[in-house]
């Protein structure tokens, strides 16, 4: 049992955000990207690099904390840690920063994610180079030899099952792709800023792994994002409007399955993802519910991931994610505008981290698709394995 009499509610804030450009070929190292995003976040916070005494990284990042200490010329760290796996990390990384700060282990914590996800190591390609796969607790031997090789193929099995159980349609998934694309069209930083998308375009696109089409997939991207976390009290002395961290949570389903990716297919339900247990903890800690959320940045490695999270986070009943998405709810002016920078589907895939940056922009009132009066923003990092999420709130 966790002791929630010691609450972190609203006691820390994100005071600085930074991002590089998002591209298909950055021409820079992961480390350079990390340094650029980090310096931007530190400057945005009104701090100098020497103020940073903690760093949290993602387990799949190629950049280590000491690499960044070396490159930025930091005097030293009193705290360094990592979260994962992969896309599960971003909100959990902020949670680690909060824990470090509230327990006195650090005062200004830098949280970053950097990857040459398009020109370097591409997660969408088959990972297999060796002759034999699996073992060592990966359980890959039960999946990869059959040609089940990528996350997209796995999410296609999940989408197909959602269609079988609930009658979800291609147009439902398309509504998610279109909402993200329309927000990207307004975002000068988004890779798809100049490329409009209609439902006809969506449906006519080639299938990658049925029922998923080209535009159900996120954009493998080169880029980096970073944020600076400190106490809410300290935030009052800093120049930018703080985004209070109302609550942060991690969650895993009751039958999580071993390994990292494909064993999820053995879960009791493959259409209920770790968002559901994460949401329960998050809302309890926040003292808020889905009805209080003004805008959401939902982890969107694929459209189907958004659809299941609409259900998992309580915006609609189980099985009704499709009709909810198709009803216009996700658009500006709808019940739940999502991914207001374009998300992974149309801004860039910084593995969940650009969602936190965009969430802060909403709380500051600075988004390129600003939701008027947005005071509560949900950000999720819940794909397949366990998940994490947080709620940002205006001070």
């Amino acid at each position, binding site marked *: 049992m966790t002791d929630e009499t010691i609450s972190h509610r609203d006691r820390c804030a994100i005071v600085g955000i930074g991002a590089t450009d998002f591209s298909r070929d950055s021409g820079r190292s992961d480390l350079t990207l990390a340094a650029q995003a980090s310096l931007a976040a530190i400057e945005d916070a009104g701090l100098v690099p020497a103020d940073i005494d903690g760093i949290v990284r993602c387990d799949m990042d190629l950049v280590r904390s000491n690499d960044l200490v070396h490159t930025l010329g930091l005097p030293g760290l009193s705290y360094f840690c990592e979260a994962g796996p992969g896309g599960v990390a971003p909100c959990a990384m902020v949670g680690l920063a909060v824990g470090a700060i509230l327990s006195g282990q650090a005062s200004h914590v830098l949280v970053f994610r950097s990857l040459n996800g398009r020109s370097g190591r591409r997660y969408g390609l088959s990972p297999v180079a060796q002759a034999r*796969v699996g073992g060592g607790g990966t359980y890959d031997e039960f999946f*990869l030899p059959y040609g*089940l090789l990528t996350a997209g193929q796995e999410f296609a099995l999940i989408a197909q099952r959602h269609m079988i159980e609930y009658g979800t349609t291609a147009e439902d998934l398309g509504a998610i792709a279109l909402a993200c694309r329309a927000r990207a069209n307004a975002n000068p930083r988004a890779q798809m800023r100049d490329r409009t998308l209609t439902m006809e375009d969506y449906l006519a696109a080639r299938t990658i792994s049925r029922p*998923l089409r080209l535009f159900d997939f996120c954009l493998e991207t080169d880029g980096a994002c970073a944020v600076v976390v400190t106490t809410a009290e300290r935030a009052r002395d800093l120049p930018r409007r703080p985004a209070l961290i109302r609550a942060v949570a991690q969650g895993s389903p009751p039958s999580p399955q071993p390994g990292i990716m494909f064993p999820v297919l053995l879960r009791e339900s493959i259409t209920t993802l770790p968002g559901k247990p994460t949401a329960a903890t998050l809302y309890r800690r926040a003292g808020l519910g889905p009805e209080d959320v003004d805008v959401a940045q939902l982890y969107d490695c694929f459209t189907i991931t958004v659809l299941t999270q609409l259900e998992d986070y309580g915006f609609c009943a189980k099985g009704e994610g499709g009709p909810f998405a198709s009803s216009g709810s996700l658009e500006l002016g709808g019940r739940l505008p999502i991914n207001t920078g374009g998300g992974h589907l149309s801004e860039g895939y910084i593995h969940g981290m650009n969602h936190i940056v965009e969430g802060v922009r909403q709380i500051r009132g600075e988004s390129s698709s600003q939701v008027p009066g947005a005071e509560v923003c949900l950000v999720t990092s819940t794909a397949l394995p366990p998940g994490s999420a947080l709620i940002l709130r205006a001070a």
Partner: protein
Amino acid sequence: MTGEAPRILPVEDDPDSAGFFEAARRGELVVRTCAACGAHLHLPVAYCHRCRSFDTRWTAMSGRGRLYSWTVVDHQVHPAYPVPYTVVLVELDDAPGVRLVGSLPGVPELVAGQPMHVRFDTMEEGVVLPQWEPAGTPG
């Protein structure tokens, strides 16, 4: 389903999963099972958390199941797996909740819940993979 490159082979010497592939070489489909309570422990682990017991063993299955989900792969990512092919996810009749993956060439007509049966596919180096196809398909 054979492309130009050698297909991906499973390890056959992992302590937790080797028995599955050993059985497949004998033409048998097995699932790790708790000796005390009969719980099916798939993906295979050596410990039953219901009984708090390490007394587990491989148990033969009938080789019948139902189609739980599938995807037709149209975008090729590995040279040994030419598209289109169809990845199937099959839930075992004898072990509800236990699902195994298979693959079928091309784009077969499939219906959720349809009966499937196992067949054994001999790969490179004598490795045998349990595979799945619609029940009634001539083996």
